[in-house]
């Protein structure tokens, strides 16, 4: 008996039990397919988060106020809840002469409504300085960014994010138009003159930043939100620091930290300095856990599919013990019997595996960039997951075919023939 005989016999047996074969194969398709899809989703999420952090700019350090700590109870609030960073801190970092620092842009953030042309949309309002576009590697599509003159005069000028400009002025021509920016449910609101529109941020991390509206920091302070320290200094939410290309970010972070400790006359830092790499590392932890979780779920479904094939093969062999007896009586060796059933099981599992790969890769590519219940899906098909899923299906085929066939082939031909 050669390979073609074995394959022919296997295909006939598979065709003879069509429904059973389809169900068995389906188990493998779902198992293999879900491994590929879920691992692709996990990896895609990881990549999406990294892109988002990288999309913030390049060579960035973020200085944020530390967690507020209640002196009496010692209960700590969330990071950023303390009001410790001031605009003068930002100016001090810029003027410190720390060699790694190339640019500094403080910012204050508010949620606001932008109203124009009868459109009313929620925006993230950012008060900042003219250094912002360079520090955050943000480009303008039209007009100009907030200028030093705007800052000096506390001018009512605004720069719209790409998405906001598109939503408020679908026909274009946003520059020189008037936009009403309102906070506190509309109780406080001013008309701003649009002086520029930002270019869309590319990459999956762009979406959020395209919804920003920028105004001069002093304008924000005097018109929208009044945040001052006890000493009457303007407080900020975040200080963006750009370091020079190739500069040692850890050293820069330490230098900034030292500077602020002295300025705040504090023993323990009441602020945090984080690099993009720190953020990517922290987010990577989370998304790696997610990947492992998804992979395990998929692995379970593959194992369940595999057990299904084993079960079917066990039943199929038991049912055909008489056929095995006939084959043995007309001269089949034990090996021929084992080869026949292993071929049959392999054909089912490898066929299911290949279809599962096609389905899995197809679905993973299909949902990439689409929204599923409001969530933007990013998938990255991992070649190793395809190889591993296929290898597992082959191993399942070998195991589930060989064991029952081996057992059946040990029977004396006459015992097998008498089996009803």
């Amino acid at each position, binding site marked *: *008996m*050669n390979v073609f*005989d074995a394959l022919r016999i296997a295909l*006939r*047996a598979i065709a*003879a039990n069509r429904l059973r074969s389809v169900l068995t194969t389906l188990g493998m398709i779902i198992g293999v397919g879900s491994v590929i899809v879920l691992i692709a989703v996990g990896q895609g999420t990881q990549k999406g988060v990294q892109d988002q952090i990288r999309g913030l700019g390049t060579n960035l350090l973020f200085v944020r106020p530390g967690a507020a700590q209640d002196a009496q109870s010692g209960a700590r609030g969330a990071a950023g809840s303390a009001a410790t960073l001031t605009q003068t801190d930002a100016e001090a970092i810029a003027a410190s002469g720390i060699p790694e620092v190339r640019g500094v842009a403080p910012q204050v953030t508010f949620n606001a409504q932008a109203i124009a042309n009868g459109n009313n949309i929620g925006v993230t309002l950012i008060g900042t300085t003219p250094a912002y576009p360079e520090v955050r590697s943000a480009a303008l599509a039209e007009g100009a960014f907030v200028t030093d003159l705007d800052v000096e005069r506390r001018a009512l000028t605004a720069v719209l994010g790409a998405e906001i400009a598109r939503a408020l002025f679908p026909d274009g021509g946003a520059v020189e138009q008037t936009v009403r920016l309102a906070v506190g449910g509309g109780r406080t609101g001013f008309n701003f003159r649009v002086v520029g529109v930002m270019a869309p941020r590319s990459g999956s991390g762009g979406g959020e930043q395209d919804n920003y509206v920028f105004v001069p920091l002093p304008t924000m302070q005097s018109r929208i939100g009044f945040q001052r320290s006890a000493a009457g200094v303007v407080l900020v939410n975040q200080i963006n620091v750009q370091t020079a290309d190739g500069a040692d970010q850890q050293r820069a972070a330490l230098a900034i930290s030292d500077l602020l400790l002295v300025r705040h006359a504090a023993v323990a830092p009441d602020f945090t300095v984080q690099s993009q790499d720190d953020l990517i590392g922290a987010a990577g932890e989370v998304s790696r856990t997610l990947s492992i979780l998804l992979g395990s779920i998929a692995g379970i479904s593959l194992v369940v599919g595999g057990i299904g094939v084993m079960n079917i093969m066990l039943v199929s062999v038991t049912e055909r013990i*008489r*056929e095995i*007896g*006939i*084959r*043995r*009586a*007309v*001269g*089949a*060796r*034990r*090996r*021929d019997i084992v080869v026949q059933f292993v071929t049959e099981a392999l054909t089912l599992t490898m066929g299911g595996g290949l279809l599962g790969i096609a389905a899995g890769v197809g679905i993973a590519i299909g949902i990439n960039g689409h929204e599923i219940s409001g969530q933007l899906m990013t998938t990255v098909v991992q070649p190793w997951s395809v190889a591993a899923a296929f290898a597992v299906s082959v191993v399942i085929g070998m195991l589930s075919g060989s064991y029952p066939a081996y057992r059946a082939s040990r029977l*004396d*031909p*006459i015992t097998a*023939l008498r089996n009803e």
Partner: protein
Amino acid sequence: MIELQAVSRHYRAGGEVIRALDAVDLSIAAGEFVAIMGQSGSGKSTLMNILGCLDHPTGGRYLLEGHDVGKLSDDARARLRSRAFGFVFQSYNLIPRMSALEQVELPLVYQGARDRSRRAAAALQTVGLGARMRHRPTQLSGGQQQRVAIARSLVVEPRVLLADEPTGALDTRTGEEVMEVLRTLVRTRGITVIIVTHEPEIAAFTDRAIRMRDGRIVADERVA
């Protein structure tokens, strides 16, 4: 050609030893047409299964053409079944989903023989089924199915054909037709044919009748 020396086959069933064959001595020459007769439980089927290497004896020696079969490996016994013996069973033992032609090709597949379909077709012609080669077992009558089984046993040109109650499931007329086919094989091809039966009418077609009772041979008569 076939020589059994004190061959026994004991089964253990519920702590009791069943002596299906009890120290049987027997010799059969090439080209004989033999009937093994006896009631159910007499051990005649067990004898045939041991002759055909489908079952193994628990005692004694089985010499086939001077070689001790008991010393052969399982693979060697499979090769022997495939080349020296042909089997015909009472219940035909055809594989349901295969056509007549494929059933007859099966022994050739395991031999790794060439020219399978021509040889299988020729064997089906011999038993008069040349027109029904594409039929499946369910599309054939009992007599036709048994003739497919005979063709399957003939296709490897065996030296010995073993038939266990070949007419047991057939009516008298088709049974006699099957026996005619077997007799022709003995006369024209010199094949040794051994059949197991409990019907004297069927045994009457053969040249030698061996009677069994309780695992022993009680009579061995040659019909003139």
